[in-house]
């Protein structure tokens, strides 16, 4: 048991001790009057405290949705205006476009690697190269990548094999071998839209922009789980990331699609190995160094998402713990608003989304189910669910319009709130508790189905 773990247990024991002492004192005072009324007073106090807390939480949720939709819409308008002005200019100056290196880390991606690489060879950009980093795969990823490299095409494609060291290590290897002025990091199972490089590169006209985050969409919309994830991705990106982009403070450059200035990546020391969300960690490192991060909605990475519940939980478990690890690593900015500036809000927002939100929704469900069963006040549970569902439907409708997505996704908002997000939130709560306890964890690679 490490010192930090001892400290956590000691702090919790102190808090718990304080609460027990407070409760004991209250019990002693109540006993002086009437013992039978104690349980009633206790229950009513707890229920009142939870009700007030949930009321505050609901208010925050409404504000959150309103602010995100407003900022994301402003970003949408700003983006449309910029695109109209820039598109003709970019087309005309093909010869001036800088070289971009695509780094494709691949660990046991034999099922999908050839389709992924062939789609990369068709990108609409005059000056780019591809580097595949085979991260010590035990399958035929290396041989299959080499076979594509030997095919006749105009794009330089190099395949580098190395001892297994994890995704961060593979991306760092790619960075050291990159010849381009800009680096696009992605996943081995990702398919990019043809305009990706052109769309991302123009953000670097602004010298303050250090990196660009791409849009991620679900490719395998085959069953209820993947369709719900498709909605979740559309909402998360169209609404949240666009709003963050308006403030030039995107908090996660997604693993499947992120473009960086090579110099910025090198200056930041590349990816670190000490968290399970290396993309989030790197993004925070760049933000802390004062770089702006933009979001490009038309650069799309199509990814295969988990189609089975247990695989989905595994992915979310890793994301939750990884994001908490990254937040903790940069937590000094949380307590120093004058120095941290916008990063102060970013970290608190991440903590709200990662910890407070899941805890509150699970608590809300438990609370309203309890008062429904015990006091027959089922109607409160209904209104709690209805309000959150209305927020989801409004957000989904907005995102479907802005992202030009299929309208059927809006219908999934009902199921999204009814069961999907509760199951995800429960796993987030457990993951947070395990992270707090310091339970050991492994990467947990998703088994690909080869839908690319």
């Amino acid at each position, binding site marked *: 048991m490490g010192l930090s773990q001892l400290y956590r247990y000691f702090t919790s024991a102190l808090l718990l001790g304080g609460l027990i002492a407070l409760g004991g004192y209250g019990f002693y005072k109540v006993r002086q009057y009437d013992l039978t009324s104690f349980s009633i007073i206790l229950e009513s106090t707890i229920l009142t405290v939870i009700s007030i807390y949930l009321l505050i939480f609901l208010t925050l949720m409404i504000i959150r949705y309103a602010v995100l939709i407003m900022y994301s819409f402003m970003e949408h308008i700003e983006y449309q205006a910029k695109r109209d002005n820039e598109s003709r200019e970019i087309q005309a100056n093909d010869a001036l476009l800088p070289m971009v290196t695509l780094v494709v880390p691949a660990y046991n991606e034999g099922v999908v690697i050839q389709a992924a690489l062939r789609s990369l060879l068709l990108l609409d950009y005059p000056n780019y190269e591809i580097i595949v980093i085979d991260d010590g795969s035990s399958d035929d990823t290396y041989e299959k990548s080499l076979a594509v490299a030997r095919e006749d095409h105009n794009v330089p494609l190099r395949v580098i094999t190395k001892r*297994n060291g994890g995704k961060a290590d593979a991306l760092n290897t790619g960075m050291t071998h990159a010849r381009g002025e800009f680096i696009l990091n992605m996943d081995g199972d990702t398919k990019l839209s043809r305009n990706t490089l052109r769309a991302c590169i123009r953000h670097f006209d602004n010298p303050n922009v250090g990196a660009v985050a791409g849009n991620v969409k679900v490719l395998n919309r085959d069953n209820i789980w993947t369709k719900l994830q498709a909605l979740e991705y559309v909402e998360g990106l169209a609404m949240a990331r666009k709003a963050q982009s308006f403030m030039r403070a995107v908090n996660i450059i997604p693993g499947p699609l992120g473009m960086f200035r090579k110099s910025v990546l090198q200056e930041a020391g590349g990816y670190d190995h000490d968290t399970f969300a290396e993309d989030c960690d790197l993004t925070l490192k760049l933000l802390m160094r004062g770089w702006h991060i933009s979001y490009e909605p038309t650069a799309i990475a199509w990814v295969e998402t988990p189609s089975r519940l247990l695989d989905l939980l595994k992915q979310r478990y890793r994301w939750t713990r990884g994001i908490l690890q990254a937040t903790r690593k940069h937590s000094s900015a949380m307590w120093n608003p004058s120095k941290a500036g916008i990063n102060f809000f970013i970290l608190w927002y991440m903590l709200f989304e990662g910890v407070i939100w899941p805890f509150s929704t699970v608590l809300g469900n438990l609370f309203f189910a309890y008062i429904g069963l015990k006091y027959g006040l*089922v109607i409160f*549970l209904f209104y709690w669910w209805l309000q959150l569902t209305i927020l989801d439907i409004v957000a989904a409708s907005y995102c479907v319009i802005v992202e030009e997505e299929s309208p059927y996704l809006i219908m999934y908002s009902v199921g999204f709130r009814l*069961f999907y997000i509760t199951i995800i939130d429960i796993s987030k709560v457990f993951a947070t508790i395990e992270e707090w306890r310091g339970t050991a964890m492994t990467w947990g690679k998703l088994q690909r189905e080869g839908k690319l």
Partner: protein
Amino acid sequence: MDLISILATVILITTIGTLVAGVAAYAAFKLRDKRRPKKKDPTDAGDAQDAEPIFLKRYTPKTDNPA
């Protein structure tokens, strides 16, 4: 029973069911993870030194020079 009450009852049953299913799914995921054969952590830089010997009995070359 009016429509709202029926809907509220449906939501109550679904909520309780989902809470139970969520905990059960998480337990199943943890159990599956535990039962899966353990793989060495690829990020462990020290695994080269700690690697198991490939011989059943460690090979030690004989020295010709006893001095």
